[in-house]
């Protein structure tokens, strides 16, 4: 009973991991520029790897190796934003123009958006 439950928990976790990795892949293909792609690329690392490693931890059960998966996740969570920031920052430094939404009905609640209209397209 417990074993079947555990089996299905593992399957569900891995399935979720695959799902978010898939979504992230779709996002990288569909989104318009490097900045927005960086958003979705980090999904693979956060929830994709997160769920997959959680599945691995459950599969290992209560033993030392499960600690490693948590550690692994910890380092992924530190390196992922660092890499995303490095990519977007170097894009900014080399002058890649972000594709920005037209200032529309939304976002009018903040001050200082008057200076954006000329630039966004």
């Amino acid at each position, binding site marked *: 009973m417990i074993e079947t439950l555990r089996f299905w928990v593992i399957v569900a976790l891995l399935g979720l991991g695959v799902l*978010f990795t898939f*979504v992230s892949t*779709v*996002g990288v293909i*569909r*989104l*318009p*520029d490097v*900045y*927005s792609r*960086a*958003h*979705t690329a*980090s*999904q693979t690392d*956060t*929830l994709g790897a*997160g769920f997959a490693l959680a599945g691995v931890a459950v599969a290992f059960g209560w033993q*030392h190796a499960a*600690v*490693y998966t948590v*550690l692994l996740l910890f380092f992924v*969570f*530190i390196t*992922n*934003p*660092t890499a*995303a*920031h490095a990519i*977007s*920052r170097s894009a*900014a430094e080399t*002058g890649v*123009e*972000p*594709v*920005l*939404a037209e*200032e*529309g009905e*939304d*976002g009018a*609640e*903040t*001050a*200082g*958006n008057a*200076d*954006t*209209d*000329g*630039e*966004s397209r």
Partner: protein
Amino acid sequence: MSNDGRQEGDAVAVERLLVPLSDTVTVRQTVGYAVQSGLEAADSLECHLVVAMPYDADVPQSDRYSDDADGLLSRAQNWAEEDAGGADVTIETTTLGADEYLFGPRDYAESFDAYADEHGIDRVVLDPEYQPGVTAQMLQPLERELDRIGLAYDEAPVDRPARRGRLNGGPEGFDRQFATFLISYGFYLLLGDPSYWFDLVTGAAVAGIVAISLAQVTFTVPPDRVQSPLRVVRFALYIPYLLWEIVKANIAVSAVILRPSMPIEPTLTRVNSRVRSGLPLTALANSITLTPGTLTVRANNQQLLVHTLIPGARDDLFDGGLERGIRFVFYGRKSAAIASPRERDDAEIVGGDEL
């Protein structure tokens, strides 16, 4: 350049300093040192903050350079005023070399010298990382040229991230080493087997070596005996909250991506965060990037330039939940209850030219 009339006021001891600025990690400390040392030398201080324009100042991007220069100058002026407190400090800011062609260290030195003659400068305070424009680092050649010209200069003693420190620095040094030892020993035992004597012994040896050799690099700020362990505990409390935010944001972004119409609304926003530079700011910027939908593109001191993908993520950012979390981790529960960036007018949507 409006202070020619001030030079006859030498009856009162006035120290006049020239501080060339460039956008480096140590520029803040250089300004701090200049103000402090100037006030030690004399009762009142005249601090000339200058930015020397790089040699390619007349190419089409020159507007951007002069904007950068103006930004740096106004920031530096704020710093200097902050450091001055109530003391008698006059701050002049200007840019040099806008009308000439500064190429090598000699040009810079001569430009500084001309300015120094004009304004009766006593001393130049140099940033050790000084690097005007896009040229390579030029502190040493610049110092040689200043020697040749005979302009007195002083190199600001700053803490650099990769500074080579002393091995023993009193109680602070011990704290650093002890904390480094604990962290590395704990990590070693986490990877190894804490109940096996061999791992315990080798771990202690390795952690000892790491602590002695790397403690200065590990902590730029010495750890506090009470606060630092508390911060670790609060950080452990912060992790579930961060994970929950990540899951929420992931679902929101996934929904947008999978929708055939893909209703994204990319914007670039600027948020002035209320956390200290260094580790707290890094933690905040990383948390922001870790949640899909918000991405930190730039971090200049407390100013974060964040790219947001969907309006929901932007609203979350402007509500400042993560910022409160980080303030909770580093400063405790009381400081966590601050107004959101939106309420205190520290968040705005900016255009792409801000990059």
